[in-house]
């Protein structure tokens, strides 16, 4: 199971979503700009502190990332393999290994936002970031995705179970994809058509009642911290 939003009173929950988005971008920029192991140790400590504040187990987080970890481990090994003597370059493998570790940290930084920010607050931040009807359309669409997703997932699970009972596992891969895709798409379209009729009947407006956003003292502090990280990232590139 992936990381999802949980209500709380931590410092990360109290931050404005716009601040958290900005800080994520700044942290990712700094993480990619500095390729030495030492800054990564600093980021690792920061991430562990954040997880501890949020009462999230690092092991549980790593378990949700198993497929990514498998892929990154293979990438690290393949990066070191040489055709011919000495057959394996530890320097190349460690370079990719450090980069792979940085990717894992960057993903966890994103999880902190996901765990502490409700979708509606993110929608409000989106509307602030992208002004006008485009932003409002984007916020409405993302809201609809959030509404459709659990329903479509339930439908998809039901279809997979039904296929397994009827011996679908013995079908070829492309046949399985086709059968599954047809039934899921047909069910999703019928669901969406009903939603569309309901939304038109209820007169959807361009003025949604999203939560109001405001910056506090903590936000200004975090924004300055983000600016510092961005400055360091730019300086390292010059």
């Amino acid at each position, binding site marked *: *199971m*992936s*990381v999802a939003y949980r209500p709380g009173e931590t410092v990360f929950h109290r931050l404005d979503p716009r601040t958290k*988005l900005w800080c994520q971008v700044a942290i*990712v920029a700094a993480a*990619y700009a500095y*390729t030495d192991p030492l800054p990564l140790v600093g980021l690792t400590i920061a991430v562990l502190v954040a997880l501890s504040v949020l009462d999230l187990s690092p092991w549980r987080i790593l378990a*949700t*990332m198993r497929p990514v970890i*498998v*892929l990154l481990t*293979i*990438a690290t090994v*393949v*990066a070191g*393999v040489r055709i011919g003597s000495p057959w394996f370059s530890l320097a190349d493998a460690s370079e*990719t290994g450090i*980069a792979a570790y940085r*990717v894992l940290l*960057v*993903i*966890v*930084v*994103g999880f902190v*936002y*996901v765990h502490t920010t409700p*979708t509606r607050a*993110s929608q409000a931040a989106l509307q602030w970031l992208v002004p006008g009807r485009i932003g409002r*359309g*984007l916020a409405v*669409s*993302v809201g*609809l*995705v*959030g509404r*459709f*997703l659990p329903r*479509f*997932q339930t439908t*998809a699970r039901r279809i997979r179970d039904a296929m397994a009972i009827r011996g679908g596992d013995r079908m*070829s*891969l*492309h046949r*399985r*994809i086709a059968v*599954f*895709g*047809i039934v899921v*798409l*047909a069910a*999703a*379209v019928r669901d*969406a*058509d009903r939603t*569309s009729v309901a*939304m*038109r009947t209820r007169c959807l*407006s*361009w*003025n949604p009642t999203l939560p109001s956003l405001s910056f506090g003292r903590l936000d200004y502090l975090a924004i300055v911290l983000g600016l510092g990280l961005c400055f360091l990232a730019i300086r390292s590139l010059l």
Partner: protein
Amino acid sequence: MSEHQHVELVADRTVDRLVRVALFAALLGVLSYVAFPYPLSPAPVTLQVLGVFLAGIFLGPIWGAIAVVVYLVAGAIGLPVFSMGQSGIGVLLSERVGFLVSFPIAAAMTGAIVHGGRSLVDPTTVSTLRLVLGMTLATGVIYLLGLIGFMIVLSMGPVEAFVVAGLVFLPAEVAKMAGAIAIVRSARLPRSLIDR
């Protein structure tokens, strides 16, 4: 004194478009979560790229690309729509950045070739050759940008990146193309998906 706010209603046609965009963005999220065991890869293969193809085929180049952008934004702000139900800006900016960024372009490319331009045609009447061409070029863009992203983020050479993130997955893309064609040709799809 009471406050009055001007309420601006969304036109019916726009509602339909927004719902259709959200439908394909959510479908892409579900297909990214569905993993089929694949003998050539240690990691299971998801149907994410099939969702990109379908968005381009059924929504056309513009709305197909918009649906994929909505998918990326939804994933970035926390909806569990990325591969294996993950989400967050971190995933968007991980080693998958090139693949994810290529998806709107791939949907637009599929849509442009299948529909032969910006005005939409009934995709069920489009020739198989045109469908295959659209999806093949889209797959090319996905892997080109995907592997470039992989090389940059993981400091790898092009051959190593292709071995890890391309070679074993490409045959699965052929199965997804065959699946997409079977979906388009199916008589079980609601007419509302095709009639505009």
